[in-house]
């Protein structure tokens, strides 16, 4: 069990993300023929909820810089993830090698 724990956990994480993708179907366009958007960001939905609760509220500050397109935004998100994943890989590689060298040294001694 312990041996396969990581694999099982990883499979569960993938399943948790995949199941909604399969289960939730795009509803048919409403009477105004507008495409219904699914899997939009929760942040965006909260923004819309604010506009329904307080229709008179006007945001008083604009972002200094907005990614000029969705593509650029994706690029920056990928960069953020890559920085993190790169370091995690570096740590894992260092640690695995260190553990192996220690083992070899003990066997050699």
């Amino acid at each position, binding site marked *: 069990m312990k041996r396969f*724990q*990581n694999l099982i*956990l*990883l499979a*569960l*994480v993938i399943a*948790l*993300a995949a*199941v*909604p*993708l399969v*289960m*939730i179907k795009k509803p048919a366009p409403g009477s105004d023929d507008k495409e219904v958007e*699914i*899997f*939009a*960001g*929760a*942040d965006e*939905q*909260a*923004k819309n*909820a*604010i506009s329904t*609760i*307080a229709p008179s*509220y006007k*945001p*008083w*500050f*604009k*972002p*200094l*810089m*907005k*990614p000029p397109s969705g593509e650029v*935004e994706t690029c*920056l*998100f*990928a960069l*953020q*993830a890559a*920085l*993190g*994943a*790169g*370091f*995690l890989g570096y*740590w*894992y590689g*260092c*640690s*695995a090698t*260190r*553990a192996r060298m220690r083992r070899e040294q003990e066997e050699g001694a």
Partner: protein
Amino acid sequence: MHIMEGFLPVKHCIGWGVASAPFVAWGLATVNKRIRENPEQRMLLGVATAYTFVLSALKMPSVTGSCSHPTGTGLGAVLFGPAAMAPIGAVVLLFQALLLAHGGLTTLGANIFSMAIVGPFVAYFVYRLAKAVRLPFGVCIFLAAALGDLMTYVTTSVQLALAFPDPAGGFTASFLKFAGIFAVTQLPLAISEGFLTVIVFNALARFNPQELKDLNVATVQEMKA
């Protein structure tokens, strides 16, 4: 959990900023002290930071038909104590506010409070509590990371409900509305974050048992259980 730029009234922005600042300063002090005394722990601090970078960039689909992202702050909180994640989370949020127009400078204080303060504190104390009642190591880590993640989003809902109480139902109605958007979406993602954090801790237990012991996270016997 990102409250968008300009979407909190000025008073709230200042209030949450004032509330967050001491935690960030406290966190910086603890991190500096720790690194000065134990330079070998730098690597693990990097791991905690990197983990938050990765997880908060992953927007995952959820059962509610919307997308949200985990926070990744539970790992560092369990390793380095609750305050250490405040400055690290602040860096991530600043990156996203400046370059991605996600969150914002005016809402930075509020977003730091939910993601980099409440989340890590919940994670840290859940871990200590779960360990005190002798739950298995993996279960302690799972609960800490998952609940820390979830409470971050509950905090965001509280913050928005305080700023925008429903004209009819007041704070409660508004909170339920925002929690329906954030917390419910977050449930499966919080579980995912819990699982992923257990995977990382399995690796830490294998490769860095000495550091985990020095950091007072767990002993070798506890990790094997």
